[in-house]
């Protein structure tokens, strides 16, 4: 960290300790969230999410695949995330960083564990099934990529249309059937800064964060969690944050449902 970054980080820690945030939010307030779906016509489903100044784009492609030998009765869903070099000055080209891999795997785990798409529904015929590839592109970084990416991936899946399966291959000109959705998973990410905890950390807040906890829920049960960074949480804090994440799920449902196609 350079001198300016250290001063900024110290400033964030100071005001958070007083219960304030840089942008005037309360501890458990999200920034403004905007979801636009069907932004890429060629994708079977797509969504762009703005969470404050963080912007991510998710595109879902649905392809005919051979089934896996250990799961011959179902299809597959594969979610990836990429930190594009155009999204922040610090991002570089090259192989994915551990941070990018963690982001992709955490988003994938939440949506997979939530059985958002019933994988049995993706079965086509003996040996063949749909695979849904969801790629999340981070276009502009300002913190909390976990929640923005999960929301974008989920919105893209929730609005996806299946190609028609004909003679062993997909007809992409006929995508009249909606992909059936089983549940909606949303994640809430918390940043512990000193002894305070805030939701939806901005980029500047993340730079000052000691410990991070992401909780993905389907509104009823916890579907995935990931603690990150070198700080710690107490058992009570985890329980409390899980309660908040379960509550916040309602807000995310609204965002996904109000996103017009």
């Amino acid at each position, binding site marked *: 960290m350079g001198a300016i970054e250290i001063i900024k980080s110290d400033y964030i820690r100071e005001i958070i300790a007083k219960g304030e945030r840089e942008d005037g939010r309360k501890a458990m307030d999200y920034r403004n969230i905007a979801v636009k779906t069907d932004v890429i016509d060629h994708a079977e489903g797509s969504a762009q999410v703005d969470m404050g100044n963080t912007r991510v784009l998710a595109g879902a492609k649905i392809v005919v695949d051979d089934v896996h030998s250990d799961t011959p*009765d179902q299809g597959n869903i594969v979610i990836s995330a990429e930190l594009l070099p155009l999204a922040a000055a610090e991002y570089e080209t090259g192989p994915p960083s551990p941070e990018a*891999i963690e982001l992709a795997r955490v988003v994938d785990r939440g949506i997979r564990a939530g059985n958002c798409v019933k994988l049995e529904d993706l079965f086509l015929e003996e040996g063949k099934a749909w695979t849904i590839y969801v790629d999340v592109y981070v276009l502009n970084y300002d913190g909390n990529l976990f929640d923005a990416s999960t929301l974008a991936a989920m919105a893209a899946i929730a609005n996806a249309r299946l190609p028609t399966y004909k003679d062993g291959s997909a007809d992409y000109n006929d995508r009249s059937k909606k992909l059936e959705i089983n549940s909606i998973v949303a994640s809430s990410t918390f940043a512990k800064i000193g002894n305070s905890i805030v939701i939806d950390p901005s980029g500047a807040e993340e730079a000052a964060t000691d410990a991070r906890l992401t909780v993905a829920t389907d509104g009823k049960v916890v579907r995935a969690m*990931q*603690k*990150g960074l070198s700080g*710690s*949480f107490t058992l009570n804090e*985890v329980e409390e944050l899980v309660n908040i994440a379960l509550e916040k799920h309602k807000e995310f449902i609204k965002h996904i449902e109000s996103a017009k196609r």
Partner: protein
Amino acid sequence: MASSLNKPELIVNGKRLDGRSFGELRPLKIEANVLKNAQGSAYLEWGNNRVLAAVYGPKEAMPKHTADPTKAVIKCRYSMAPFSGLGEHGRSGPNRRAIEISKVTKEVFENVIFLNEFPGSEIDIFIEILQSDGGTRAAGITAAAVALANAGIKMKDLVYAVSAGRIGEHVVLDVNMIEDNYSDADMPMAISPKSNEILLLQMDGGLDKKQLKEGMDMVIDAGKTISKVQRDALKAIYESR
């Protein structure tokens, strides 16, 4: 999670497939100081898991741009041997899963090591999974903590890790591979036992609030047993001298 087609009955007559009760750990053995060249090392057997952990450093951070002038940096590599699994030959070298585990493991030890005492240096933690049977990241962290202590690296606590999970309606401790493949939730945790602070927490599957609490309490409870095996391994080095 594997297909439900071939799902075995994981609990029979209130016991798990390997005969354990819900809150019971698999047998755990640790031996410290097993490698000559490393500053510290540990060999761990936990159920059918076989894990080797080694620590090198503190030494000058290389390449130089990775150095932090204010504190030591930790470099951690978790890796699974290609022969470690019961099934096919694994691919050698770290895959995406291993890179994620290496990252969260590194973050666990950044919490407990007094990094400020070694500015500009690096501490390397190598975790090799020689045989895997579920819960290898927890086994790796538990072994690495012993290896770090064996290396004489100052830490504020001796960390342990173990996972809780859910099989049907039952919350269980220390999930093995067959349970993990078909279980309804898996939640690895690493704990700093002096304060019971959580240094690693991952989870996937489904847990309601009550099950989450029950799982976390099981992990805390298991700490007494695991910590004792860790401390005994370190004590044994001096006894054998």
